[in-house]
């Protein structure tokens, strides 16, 4: 058969058809088998990873993550868990499941409280993670006994202990206070003393001799005694015997140089002169000035004992203050730290910190230097290592069914 010119075309022979069918079959097969998998490998895991990172970033930007961390700091785990779950439920799609963890088992949140989530998490085919860092207080209980006899003291203590996780026992009852100072913790064996620090910002009263003796024993053998200037001023004349150390001694002060200057209405400041101690270390530095002001503020001219000078350190001193009428010449000491100088009880360590001022006053009554005073006091109270530690916040996400 012959074709005319206008009837010419392509003849699709049988072998060509067979070849085409084979090629098409192979291509479609590869497309169906490899395509979905390849597409998922390229985009699915990336999407999952971005779900995790975007969710944490969203929580960071909206402040929700900070709120959750603050709940954890306050040991309010239920609120932290509810907030984290509510936020992640809103942010992540329904088919994405999550496990949200803060620190070393401080908080673990799944999409619901149903059991079985841990198994789902461990058997998930693929997990994507996102991590941020949080700064949290140490996990162990740190117990503080605080003498707080007015609203300024109480407000100051609230600020100091905020988000620290400390257990603070507050009192203005001297009998209770006296009995608590040397209390034993019978929940541990061998028994340890219950409190690690005693804090008396401004006690405007003369404690009886037993209370003072207990304070002295505590500061010598058991833990950290932190007091403000008023406390020592009202207890400067001890009822103790000569064989018993006195309060000023365990605070590193020479009794001969105790004095109180006249009121001064000028604003003044405290200069850091030692930035190697944990109380005045970074971000403070030598010559850093912490403002101190109030309507009726007092400073004191306590100074270290020469006999224990090797363990007593002046961390900060006052600047621009009036001469104290023959008591001592400026610069007056601002913060005195007395390190351990006799053996502690049961491996404990006795130390003292004296703030030569009405401690609560400037932090609460004035806006000047507030954060500095809170920071100094917080660091002085917490002596058992770092006040904080880095702990990761991790969000795991995976695709899967919910646990009913």
């Amino acid at each position, binding site marked *: 058969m012959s074709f005319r010119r206008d009837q010419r075309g392509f003849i699709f022979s049988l072998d060509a058809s067979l*070849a085409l069918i084979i090629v098409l079959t192979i291509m479609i097969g590869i497309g169906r088998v490899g395509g979905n998998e*390849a597409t998922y490998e390229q985009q699915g895991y990336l999407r999952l990873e971005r779900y995790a*990172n975007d969710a944490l970033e969203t929580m960071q930007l909206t402040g929700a993550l900070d709120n959750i961390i603050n709940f954890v700091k306050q040991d309010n785990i239920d609120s932290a868990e509810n907030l984290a779950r509510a936020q992640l439920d809103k942010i992540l799609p329904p088919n994405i499941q999550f496990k949200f963890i803060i620190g070393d088992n401080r908080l673990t949140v799944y999409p619901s409280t149903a059991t079985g989530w841990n198994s789902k998490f461990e058997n998930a085919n693929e997990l994507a993670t996102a*991590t941020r*860092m949080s*700064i949290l207080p140490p996990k162990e209980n740190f117990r503080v006994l605080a003498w707080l006899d007015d609203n300024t003291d109480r407000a100051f203590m609230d600020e100091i202990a905020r988000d620290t996780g400390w257990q603070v026992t507050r009192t203005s009852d001297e009998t209770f206070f006296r009995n608590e100072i040397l209390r034993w913790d019978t929940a541990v064996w061998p028994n340890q003393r219950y409190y690690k620090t005693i804090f008396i910002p401004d006690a405007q009263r003369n404690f009886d001799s037993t209370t003072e003796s207990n304070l002295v024993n505590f500061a010598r053998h058991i833990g950290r005694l932190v007091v403000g200037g008023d406390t020592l001023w009202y207890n400067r004349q001890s009822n103790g015997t000569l064989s018993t150390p006195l309060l000023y001694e365990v605070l590193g002060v020479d009794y001969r140089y105790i004095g109180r200057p006249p009121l001064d209405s000028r604003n003044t400041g405290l200069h850091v002169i030692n930035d190697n101690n944990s109380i005045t270390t970074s971000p403070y530095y030598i010559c850093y000035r912490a403002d101190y002001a109030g309507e009726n503020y007092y400073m004191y001219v306590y100074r270290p004992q020469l006999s224990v000078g090797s363990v007593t350190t002046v961390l900060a001193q006052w600047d621009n203050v009036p001469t104290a009428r023959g008591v001592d010449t400026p610069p007056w000491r601002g913060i005195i730290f007395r390190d351990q100088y006799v053996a502690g009880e049961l491996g404990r360590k006795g130390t003292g910190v004296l703030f030569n001022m009405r401690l609560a006053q400037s932090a609460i009554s004035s806006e000047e230097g507030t*954060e500095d005073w809170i920071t100094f006091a917080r660091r002085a109270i917490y002596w058992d290592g770092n006040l904080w530690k880095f702990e990761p916040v*991790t969000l795991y996400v995976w695709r899967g069914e919910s646990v009913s």
Partner: protein
Amino acid sequence: MRLLRDKRGFVLSGLALLLVLPAMLLVASYFKVVETGGEATAFQIIADKVTYVGKDIERVIRYMSNNYLPINNTTLRELAENYRVATGLLVDVGPVIIYPFWIHVINTGVNHYAGTQYCKITEAGTGKWRYNFEDLDVGIGENPDYDYNEPRLLVEKLGGVLRITIEEYDGGYHSDIYYSSQLIKGFVGGSERNHVGDIILVNENLTSGIPIYVRDPNGTTQYFSTVELIA
């Protein structure tokens, strides 16, 4: 030639071959696309991770500064170690103090600053550091060898003065060395090792920038920045 029955088979004609060849090419291309796409995805995932960690370190350092937490080399090392453990990335944070040294590479016109990947700072004793610069720049198509000796400066703190010794310049380029805005030595290096061994004194001008360097173990993606805390 006549084939016997048991020798019969499919004869691949020229037309069939022409159809099969482009199909094979398409399939090969498809696999290449898949491979490239996979690499790009992996790269994006690593880049995301490195970027988020870098940004988060900046946030944590600012938080520490705002909340009066101690920022020193010990705490920064601890911070970096926590990120390393939590993410598997290589993380360096600090040191706290960086003197504002930089070089202007005369041959290429680029500037390389302390606190970036082109300058490695190492402690050489109390009050002594080495500022080790790399003069090649990946941004203009060069392949830096990161041997960090073009130039290598020994910086010694003597009271309020810094004594700078140009210890080495092992490269063909010439560079000007600056301390902040001050040119402290010009046309250093080259094959003649111009000014190597020279000593310069400058007044100390401290900054409190904290360098952050995050990268994945293979070096595929890197993140650099410097957090300035005190103006």
